[in-house]
């Protein structure tokens, strides 16, 4: 018999459920006085470097109905392409930019909205540059394990055309599901959980 690997098993996921707001955005859900403010609500302040943008969209289920009880987290590099994380070894990110945001969608309209900056480019495993992108994590009632996807910027055509992740997608017809379209300072990004235009989700 060989030695044991002695590796533990990851704790299994369970759905965030309909009341995820209580734990993650209690002020949003009407529970005030416990935390000063909900974590992740503000990503930028007046000193944050880079181009200010808004990311806005909805998440649709397989019937085309927008989810109204979901929670989305985003994680992105700063305007210079650095992550505000202890594991970032290439430099020091903008201290006025958290890189991480968390928003519940509006309980009536299903719209989510992040005020952030446009991220710079970060390297792929082999050193090639990736196109600017935002990582997303979506949880909700009925979602058993949080869904990972990425948002790219449709107006970054040259960078997208050489992005190491995008170019290796077999079904290029699905690539537009990862593209946010610009109108003014707002990038619009809808997510489809099922159907013909199902968003590409990643196993990361």
């Amino acid at each position, binding site marked *: 018999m060989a030695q044991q690997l*002695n*590796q*533990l*098993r990851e*704790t*299994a996921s*369970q*759905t*965030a*459920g*309909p*009341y*995820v*707001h*209580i*734990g*993650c955005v*209690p002020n949003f*859900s*009407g*529970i005030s006085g*416990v*935390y000063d403010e909900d*974590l992740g609500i503000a990503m930028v302040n007046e000193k944050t470097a880079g181009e200010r943008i808004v990311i806005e969209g909805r998440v649709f*289920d*397989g019937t085309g109905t927008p989810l109204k009880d979901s929670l989305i987290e985003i*994680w992105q*590099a700063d305007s210079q392409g650095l*992550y505000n*994380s*202890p*594991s*970032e*070894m290439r430099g020091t990110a903008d201290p006025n930019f*958290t*890189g991480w945001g968390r928003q519940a969608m509006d*309980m009536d309209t299903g719209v989510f909205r992040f005020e952030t900056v446009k991220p710079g480019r*970060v390297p*792929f*495993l082999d*050193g090639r540059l*990736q196109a600017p992108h935002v*990582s997303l*994590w979506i*949880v909700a*009632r*009925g*979602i*058993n*394990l*949080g869904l990972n996807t990425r948002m790219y910027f449709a107006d970054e055509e040259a960078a997208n055309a050489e992005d190491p*992740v995008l170019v290796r997608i077999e079904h290029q017809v*699905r690539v537009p599901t990862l593209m946010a379209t610009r109108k003014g300072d707002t990038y619009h990004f809808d997510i489809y*959980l*099922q159907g013909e235009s*199902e968003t590409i*989700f*990643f*196993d*990361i």
Partner: protein
Amino acid sequence: MGNAKPETGAFFPRNRSLHPKAFTPDYKTSVVRSPQKALLSLNDTISEITGPVFGHEILGEKDNDLILNFARPGESALGERIVVHGRVLDERGRGVSGALLEFWQANAGGRYRHAKEGYIAPLDPNFGGCGRTITDDDGYYSLRTVKPGPYPWPNGVNDWRPSHIHFSVFGHGFAQRLITQMYFEGDPLIPLCPIARTITDQAALDQLIAPLDMANTIPMDARAFKFDIVLRGRRSTLFENRMEGN
């Protein structure tokens, strides 16, 4: 974070067989919310390896005490007083320091403080139902609360959730992000619950059940339950090819 050197390795591939599948028709809401196409495999880049980390300075004194953090001065939440404690570990068995844990739950009668909640059990004016803490250098955490009650929910005509506490866990990388639920040892509703049963690997479900921990029970005050949480581990980067200039 202590004095440990930040880790920069890629995460072990996720063992998806121990997680629930996306499409679990006995849990009805999953039917139209489950992606149907294959996930696209992505080897971790710096976007997945890094993640937000939070400092202990964000915490208020009562953040991990649900008995008091919403209660009126001099009062406390109703119900069975319990302590939940344990460690956040990674798959290599190492304690994860500086991990933010957020938790939420129903009150002792099984009622959530939420606009969309309509169960007839009453709200407790002294119980909000949310809390948070950050692990210490060894990955250890604890919280104090009241044991949440079971409650009926609209799925089947007579489905009941077992008593449970929701946990949201941040490690050090975005790919470690996890939300799960903790159940209580001996609860007969666990094997009946369509949400618990989305996990088909029995050992993985057992890992969500916190045992009574009499050694850490506070005499004449609160029982203790132990709940360890395992996040994805990282590869060693010793022999990995490094990018030029990195």
